[in-house]
């Protein structure tokens, strides 16, 4: 069965992926590793959500993809942030900040 789809979580995944790719082109596996590592194992990206998300972003023109060779000599599909994706990232970051601020306010004053 499908997980109930949550807009917040979905949006967050896009933000995390875009932010990761902002560091430079990366393949899907690299994206999961990076997020897991940087979040100190707190955030784990499900493959089941990652690939649909990556392909949707590609369709929307936020990222472009091409085949390349990984560090250990494997063919892998590398995703690169486009100009449109950069703009989207800025937008998503702003939204995220607004959201966390709002949540923080609620936590402090409720």
């Amino acid at each position: 069965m499908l997980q109930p789809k949550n807009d917040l979580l979905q949006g967050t995944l896009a933000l995390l992926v875009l932010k990761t790719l902002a560091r430079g082109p990366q393949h899907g596996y690299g994206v999961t590793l990076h997020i897991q590592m940087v979040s100190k194992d707190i955030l784990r990206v499900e493959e089941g959500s990652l690939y649909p998300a990556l392909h949707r972003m590609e369709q929307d023109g936020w990222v472009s993809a091409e085949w390349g060779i990984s560090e250990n000599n494997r063919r892998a599909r590398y995703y690169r942030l486009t100009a449109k994706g950069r703009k989207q990232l800025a937008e998503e970051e702003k939204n995220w900040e607004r959201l966390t601020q709002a949540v923080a306010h609620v936590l402090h004053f409720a």
Partner: protein
Amino acid sequence: MSWIARLRGMLRRERLDQDLDEELRSHLEMRTADNLAAGMSPEEARYEAQKRFGNTTLLKEDTRAADILGWLDECSRDFRHALRMLQRSPGFTAVAVLTLALGIGANTALFSVINAVLLHPLPYHDPDSLAMVWESNSQHSNPHNTVSPPNFLDWQSRNTVFSSMAFIFDERDNLTGNGDPQEVVVQDVSTNFFSLLGVDPLIGPGFTPENGQPGHANVVILSYGLWKERFAGDPAIVGKSILLNGRHQTVVGVAPQNFQWFIKDGSLTGAKPQMWSPFVFPQSFHDHKQIGRFMTVVARLRPGATHSEAQTQMNAIASRLEQEYPDFDGHWGVNVVPLRQQISGDVRPALLVLFGAVAFVLLIACANVSSLLLARAASREREMAIRTAIGASRWRIARQLLMESLLLALIGGGIGVALAVWGTNALLAASPRNLLDLRAVSMDLRVLAFAVGATLLAGLLFGFLPSYLSAHSRISQTLKEGGRGSSSANRRALARNAFVVAQLGLALVLLTGAGLLTRSFVRLIGVDPGFDTGHLLTFKVALPGSKYGTDQLCLAFFRQLLARISTVPGVRFVSMESFPPLTGLGAATGVRLLSQPARPLSDLPVADVGVVGPDYFTTMSIPLHAGRLFSTQELAEEKHVTIINQAFADKYLHGVNPLGQKAAIYMKSFAENEIHPSEIIGVVGDVHHIGLDTAPEPTVYWPHPELVMSGMTILVRTSNDPSAMVSAARNELQQIDPELPMAAVATMDQLLADSLSRSRFTMLLLGIFAAVAVVLASVGIYGLIAYSVTQRTPELGIRIALGAQRRDVLRLVLGQGTRLTLLAVAVGVPAALAFSRLLATLLFGVSATDPITFAGVAALLALVALLACFIPARRATRVDPIVALRYE
């Protein structure tokens, strides 16, 4: 899309799939390698990597769906799957497709007729700003009365809402020279007729305003048909002279091929025109107000003006005229009718009722297929549950099922359109000329769009509920319960019951309509026309004024013709009259009875006027009720006598002996001093002159010398087949004058059949639709009961094992059907009451709420429905308890 582009798309899709596979594989390998590096065993490493992927199929599907091409690909997968599923159950597919093809085909066929009749553009410039302008009399209840020339002139000069107004009246004239003499229908028009309609002649200059001046009106415009047939399409016809009623007329144009002007109301000939000629009002027409009402008027609205504004202004003009000329215009008003409404006016109600009926048939068909799908969904519940378990989403399952529905609809629709092409032709072939006078109805884009729309709508309509219910069933329960007796099965049973009730209810509505029309038709053919229609030949002879200019010549001609025909062997009687019965034609005027107090002209009793020849009442077998018939002398010269019919005596001379009374009949003139009152010498039986569905009008009969008419319909009563006498009669006619054509030849039985054909056709068509509806609805209830018997086989087995009798089982099963049928009747009767109100204008002698029809139809439907239930019920009584219980 070219095939190269399509091929490229396919290749790209293939590459996309490969890309995705490879991408995921590389991901898996990297994870496995890292796991190995972290110290897992190779097996463990691969298993862990695989597990994190979860449902790979779903992942792939979701990823593919992110891509438009991938989404299309998913749909095509669904499509292929749907195709396989339909192939796997050919019986179900065939029934569903045929049901839909029937529904969609019938709808498309009828829509193509409606498209041609009601929606087709009229062959005039900006037809929506054209209007017919009629006179209407508050006392005679004819909303489309023809117009008198002086009133036309006043309207024309006083109104500001119309940019122009034209008049038309038609007559039959004799066309001679080049070839056999031929009677042609000529419309006398004002010179602005063509320019008002915005139509230019195909060739020739057409009429000029100058043609409206006395002495310049000897010009004609030919119809395309006449030009082709009579003049072989002569390209140099313009400027040539033709002989019309023995007078030379110059051809100044040929009308375009699609040009037509025929307004049935107010047409004196009842036929389409073959020629147009300008008519110049003589000075007497300008003098108020002596001349009768006989013209049709068409007008074009000024830009920006609306039909209702026109009506308002014309009302004001009419009420002023009423004050200025109380004698002539008292009680007379004006009725402005948009041209489109005028043309489709009398066909519209029948077509709309039939279209409503055929839409009901499609709804029933949809309910039937929906019901079938629900039954099938029950048996596929496990399949769906398993698909859900391995990761298909609800939307995915609903989409799959909807795809199956749409596929069914598309196949059904395709066959339906083919059926419609055939059905439209059959419809046209079967339809009477006075209902649909169309040579061909083409399948244009609008019809195709309608068919596609109906197909998709039907697919969604019957597919939605089954897909929705399937997608929302709970899998754990389904798998546990083995697909039987589950909550989703209950909901499906409820839905199927509702469908059956709806089907039977809709069928009841159609059956009621058909029942009312049938009863009305039976009433109609039961009407005694008032004369004997068998063995009676009719044809028209019109004498040209150029050759038969005086009354004496006309009288002598007809006297000679009747005498000659009466000598033909096989002729029992021969006579003639001014307008033949049952064709909707006639003349009427005001009659003043001298014994009654004087009244203004416009308040006088109105009567039809029939001008008749010798032996008329004997020839027609119209009985004499009182007094005597015309004497030989009265039939030879003007003696100022008249015979009235019973309706006249009952309506205007109630309780008074009519014989010997004197009546001033305002036919020849309205001037008091010019009228010589006629003495009533006899009373005869009533004749349904206009048609069987119209009550006999009060009528006065005059012998021919009282009102000499140059065009008469000859009536020949024969002892054998009347149509065999045509050539003998023609022979006699040509012996007297070889230049005279014999027009409108028909037997009276044919005229009677023609006058009934429209009612018969509507009744027949609605009857067919109702029969289809009843069959579909019976199949629906049969299917439901049969299915429930199958489902309840174990229960029935236990009941029988415990000692239930055949009768108990029968009652149990039939009880279910009875409840549904009664519910359907309860729902259907109010719906039928609403529908039959639309039928009211088509009914004759039967009320739209006729209780006998309603009761009979409800009983019939209940009987058919119960018979349909009886077949599975009988099967239920034969359930073998041992076999039934072994299933559990």
